[in-house]
């Protein structure tokens, strides 16, 4: 069995067992896993554009939303008697995504780079506002609802429970990952990478870069529509916010933080950002600030993203520089921890004062009670942050040199 099919099998087994892991058996945990699955399909479709073809789109939620609408209308048709089981609904989303991808793709993929980015931004805003004006299609702000259980049962399942919806999502995630990975191994997939690296040279080896962008864009829109279909099944409602600018922004954050250059990066990013959005926002109202800071840090310091970071460390495992790296981490990490505790405390106190005066000034952070009215928490946090940051700054060269050493060794061996 070739290496890749072994990987897919392992992935399938993992996806199957995930909802039975202790701690993940509650309905809301499975709902979180389902959301991560939907976000992963959407992120994979987006990475086909940004990571594989170098197309930065600010309006990709368009195809997610339109696919979602097509699927919810399809589900309503099923509720009215169309004899098709629920799990096949995402195909309607994929078909709608493909159709709109072809129509809008012909307009937008004439150019790459900044022009493409701005057209996608304009188109996204335009179609979002227009759907609000067509209530029969979009149901306006309140959206369109349907039921996933009023449908012919399939394999004896009615797809009412969250677990069954999770397995439908897991199936389509695996299918999308296999198909998208295979797509990259086809002539057009290779040429997509060529267009990313050097669109001009592609013209001199007989291919029209615009046609390559158009095909990749349509395929990407189809998978975004598929993700929209899964969204429609999971929530049984699709509203205009499914194609809003915030969702387009979120998928961009997912793919870039996850790692643009690695296939698995999109999935890593989807999991991280979904967790941040759904769970962290319960602990702190400043979650968007942490997300913004994380994103800027990744763009500035770790362009390879989380996947890049992981790959780097995996490669370093095999070098002799590993102990040096480990030692440098032992020194640097505590300082980093101190700095971040100080910074987080400062942010949380400021947020409590600015946004929730009614919750009083008493607060418990990292199990330490403090009173935001008194000055010492502010001074203490600021000092902690400054000291940690300064010490980290001093310890950083040691980390850098350890990595330089590992880098040389890896380079020599390559």
């Amino acid at each position, binding site marked *: 069995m070739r290496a890749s099919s072994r990987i897919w099998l392992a992935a399938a087994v993992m996806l199957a067992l995930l909802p039975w892991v202790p701690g993940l058996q509650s309905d809301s945990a499975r709902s979180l896993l389902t959301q991560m699955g939907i976000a992963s399909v959407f992120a994979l479709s987006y990475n086909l554009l940004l990571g594989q073809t170098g197309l930065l789109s600010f309006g990709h939620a368009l195809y997610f939303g339109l696919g979602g609408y097509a699927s919810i209308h399809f589900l309503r048709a099923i509720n009215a008697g169309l004899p098709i089981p629920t799990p096949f609904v995402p195909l309607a989303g994929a078909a709608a995504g493909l159709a709109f991808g072809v129509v809008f793709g012909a*307009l937008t993929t004439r*150019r790459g780079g*900044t022009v493409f980015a*701005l057209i996608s931004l304009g188109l996204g805003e335009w179609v979002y506002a227009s759907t609000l*004006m*067509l209530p029969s299609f979009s149901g306006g702000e309140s959206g369109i609802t349907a039921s996933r259980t009023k449908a012919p049962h399939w394999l004896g399942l009615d797809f009412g429970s969250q677990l069954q919806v999770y397995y439908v999502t897991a199936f389509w995630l695996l299918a999308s990952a296999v198909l998208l990975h295979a797509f990259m191994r086809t002539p057009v997939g290779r040429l997509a990478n060529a267009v990313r690296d050097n669109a001009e040279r592609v013209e001199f080896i007989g291919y029209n870069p615009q046609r390559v962008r158009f095909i990749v864009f349509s395929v990407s829109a189809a998978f975004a529509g598929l993700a929209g279909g899964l969204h429609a099944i999971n929530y049984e409602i699709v509203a205009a916010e499914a194609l809003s600018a915030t969702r387009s922004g979120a998928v961009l954050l997912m793919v870039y933080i996850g790692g643009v250059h690695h296939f698995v990066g999109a999935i890593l990013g989807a999991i991280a950002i979904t967790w941040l959005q759904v769970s962290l926002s319960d602990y702190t109202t400043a979650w968007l*600030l942490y*997300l*913004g800071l994380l994103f800027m840090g990744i763009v500035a310091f770790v362009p390879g993203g989380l996947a890049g970071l992981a790959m780097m460390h995996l490669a370093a495992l095999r070098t002799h520089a590993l102990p040096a790296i480990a030692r440098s981490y032992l020194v640097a990490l505590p300082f980093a921890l101190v700095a971040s505790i100080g910074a987080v405390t400062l942010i949380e106190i400021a947020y409590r004062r600015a946004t929730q005066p009614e919750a009083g000034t008493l607060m418990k952070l990292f199990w330490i009670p403090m009173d935001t009215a008194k000055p010492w928490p502010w001074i203490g946090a600021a000092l902690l942050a400054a000291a940690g940051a300064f010490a980290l700054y001093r310890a950083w060269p040691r980390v850098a040199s350890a990595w330089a050493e590992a880098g040389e060794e890896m380079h020599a061996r390559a």
Partner: protein
Amino acid sequence: MKEIVAFSLLNGAVYGLLLFMLSSGLTLIFSLMGVLNFAHASVFMLGAYFSWQISRWVGFWPALVVAPLLCAMVGAAIERFGLRRVHRQGHVAEILFTFGLAYVIGELVIMAWGRNPIENHVPAVIDFAAFRVFGTSYPFYKVLMMGISVAMFAFLYVAFKRTRLGLIIQAALTHPQMVGALGHDVPRLFVLVFAIGSALAGLAGVIGGFALLTEPNMAANLGPIVFVVVVVGGLGSIPGAFVASMLIGLLQTFAVAIDYSWLDLFRALGWKVAPGSMLREVWSVKLSQAAPILPYVLLVLMLIVRPRGFMGTRET
């Protein structure tokens, strides 16, 4: 009817000049540094908050000067400590960096001034009627805004087309190594450009704060329209941005005044549209309903037909 046209013209001009004031800084940064700054509207918001805070301490006129300076420092810091690291990774990384920055500035504003809109009323010193048109008085602060906007246009047009500094900066965009070789500290030049662009955004914020609503969502609501002005005007052209701002301002204001839809047009031409069909909904959307999305329609059509925009010099 005459009244509507007069008011639409006046309101359209005011809104257009506000848009220009808001996007002039971005046009400057984009034309000279090729950086599509997603956080530009956020700096505009900072200008509004700074001027509100300062005018509470020391009055409006000092705020009109200090707020833009503070924004200039913020802009300089963004370039010096943030973008400088990212420049060599190409335009995509720059855009993404400012994209993240927009989130962060929005949350920092919430952290400092809370979530509710702040009462950023027109300060008494400029809260009087400038002139009366058809029996309606026109607030002075709108006239002040028009004045500042036109002044900005003049400053930008002269400063960067006619002065040595302007030429050096323009050269530094396309051939940074060569300009560096000629003895100019290019990184410092970029910091200067970013500072000036941010100062313009800050100044726009001081006035924009009264015209619009000063709240943490202000940047997100305005963000995309700034790009429409810059792109439709022509990437890198200041006169182009001025023309585009006025066009969008007037287009949107007049569109609101027109209450007719395609359906009325069809009826006038005698065509019948089957009632109840989904398409009927599409045709029955009135132009006044669709007014706020016209700029985006303009953006998409312009980028398809003429990516350089009205007077653009290049596409990226």
